[in-house]
């Protein structure tokens, strides 16, 4: 398994990406009343064939980050470099070419497929738009895509409503693969699925990464799923990365107080373990990104908080083989 992006070559690199949304009030005369810093200075890289897991609670900015990388939401600052090409400074045509190399799979397979298009139409559309191959070769390629994701080509004339959730997610993955991208960004691709179906989709994604040397950015809130599929994991809290490292390091031996609380909150399917364990129950909800706390954003819920935590935003620093953003790291 590739864990070092330097050795394997970085495919996607994002530097200090910020996405801020203005909040306005007033009806006719809009005035700016604040800024939601959904993503506030995130630096990450994804190596070739690597799976990077991105976890965090709702509202932490993980989906906004994915959309910013895809340029579905304009970035306020920072750069996104895909295969050495800076997408932040690209014109529309370069951007379109960039999109070919980077595709997205969304959470809800019920909403992300056009209900009026047959599977064949949905899968052939990207091939025709990007003129990937002559029109005569399209049917063969579409059938090939179906087989890649484990669906029989005889389903091609059906509409999305005729499929189950797991099958729809396979179609969404096939559509993302149609342009032979190098990077796939999957935003909670298994959250809407049942356990047994979830396992099928996870297996499919890992197989694809292995066989096609595809890089995957896997966004989820379920840590056990992320631990299983990812090489490295990044934990986000209120628009920033608080811990980044190898999947097993981060999830089995978390260092940041937030990651510790997050890991300890997952219920384990073992009654003996579950009854013995000491759970760190965080008080309250995550703070509003409209009015984030000063200093470390986690200090309002942190058990180890000190005066200096409120003073400045802690930078990511190397500790125990991963990067952690906590000034008191190693003290507890």
């Amino acid at each position, binding site marked *: 398994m590739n864990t070092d992006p330097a050795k394997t070559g970085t495919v996607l690199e994002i530097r200090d990406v910020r996405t801020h949304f203005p909040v306005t009030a007033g009806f006719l005369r809009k005035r700016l009343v604040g800024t939601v810093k959904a993503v506030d200075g995130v630096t990450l890289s994804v190596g070739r064939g690597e799976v990077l897991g991105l976890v965090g*609670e709702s509202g932490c900015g993980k989906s906004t980050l994915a959309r910013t990388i895809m340029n579905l939401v304009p970035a306020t600052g920072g750069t996104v470099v895909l295969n050495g090409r800076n997408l932040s400074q690209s014109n529309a045509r370069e951007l379109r070419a960039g999109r070919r190399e980077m595709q997205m799979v969304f959470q809800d397979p019920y909403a992300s497929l056009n209900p009026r298009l047959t599977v064949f139409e949905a899968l052939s559309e990207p091939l025709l738009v990007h003129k990937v191959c002559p029109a005569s070769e399209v049917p063969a390629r579409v059938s090939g895509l179906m087989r890649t994701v484990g669906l029989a080509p005889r389903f091609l004339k059906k509409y999305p409503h005729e499929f189950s959730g797991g099958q729809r997610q396979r179609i969404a993955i096939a559509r993302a693969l149609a342009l032979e991208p190098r990077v796939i960004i999957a935003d909670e691709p298994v959250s809407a699925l049942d356990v047994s179906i979830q396992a099928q989709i996870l297996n499919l994604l890992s197989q694809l990464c292995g066989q096609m040397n595809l890089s995957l950015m896997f966004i989820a809130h379920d840590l056990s799923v992320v631990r299983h599929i990812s090489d490295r994991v990044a934990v986000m809290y209120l628009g920033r990365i608080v811990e980044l490292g190898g999947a097993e390091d981060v999830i089995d031996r978390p260092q940041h107080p937030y990651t510790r609380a*997050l890991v300890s*909150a997952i*219920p384990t*399917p073992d009654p003996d373990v579950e009854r013995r364990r000491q759970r760190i*129950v965080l008080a309250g909800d995550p703070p509003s990104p409209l009015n984030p706390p000063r200093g470390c954003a986690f200090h309002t819920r942190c058990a180890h908080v000190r005066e200096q935590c409120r003073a400045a935003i802690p930078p990511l620093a190397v500790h125990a083989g991963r990067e952690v953003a906590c000034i008191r790291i190693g003290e507890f």
Partner: protein
Amino acid sequence: MPLLDVTDLRTYFHTRDGVTRAVDGVDFRLERGETLGIVGESGSGKSVTCYSIMGLIPQPPGRIESGTAVFDGVDLLHCKPAQARAIRGKRVAMIFQDPMTSLNPYMRISDQLIEPLLIHERISRRDALRRGLEALEAVGINDAAKRIHHHPHEFSGGMRQRVMIAMALITRPELLIADEPTTALDVTVQAQILELIKAMQKELGMAVIFITHDLGVVSGLCDRVQVMYAGRIVESADTRTLFQAPRHPYTRALQRSIPSMQPKGKDLYTIPGLPPDLSRPSIGCAFAPRCESAADTCLASDPKLAEIVPGHAQACLRVQAGTL
């Protein structure tokens, strides 16, 4: 006498495409103060079972075809409507999955919170409000005296679920039915809500039926677990037995497909195929087409839930015959 005794419950939905047998012969008992987990994938009938007991099945298209649900001597499915109303909402309360849609957005929290009290108890509005305030404080809402006059949209998801719990528990029910109450919440908030339900249960001594698809949630919370598949209970045992020595092939398969139970870097175990279409007539075990251990007998005769040891029942024909 058990607090709740459900026998041969069958709830079918009669639609244009045929009859869907959502719940197809469910039997279970619940003692006072006990916590029962009902686990299953979507469409397994776990919610419909509880909705039937609570009288929340839309009829038509739904119809309760057979069965009884005896709560403390009263059959909720066949008693007079007034009798059922006196129990549902007062002695049996329910909380739902989505706290965003299960509170009335037009009503202040105060009004919806004390509604059950005004309906079920002879109480003045002023006393009801005082009890409402206590209930909000008990579920951990800060500044309850001010917050009680707010509308639902002014609360976060976790806070709304707390309001729902306060509302369900305000009449001090003997049974709480919780239908996936933490599925829509983040893990850290889920942990808070689970702790809250445990604490309130201890305080009130009530029984809880906890419906979920998450085996992890069940393991820390429930005394007993029953697993549903295709409208029937396939296995029922105390929590430890169910997790450590499951017998039914479906329970085993479900357990094996949880990512945290499997070594990293290998393919996850998956159950082949899809759950059956419940609007098609089926013969034999509903799980047989997806079962690794299915034999010819499984497709021929209908399995029945039977005890293999006292307190541990399961519905696999081959386990019952001793060949698995």
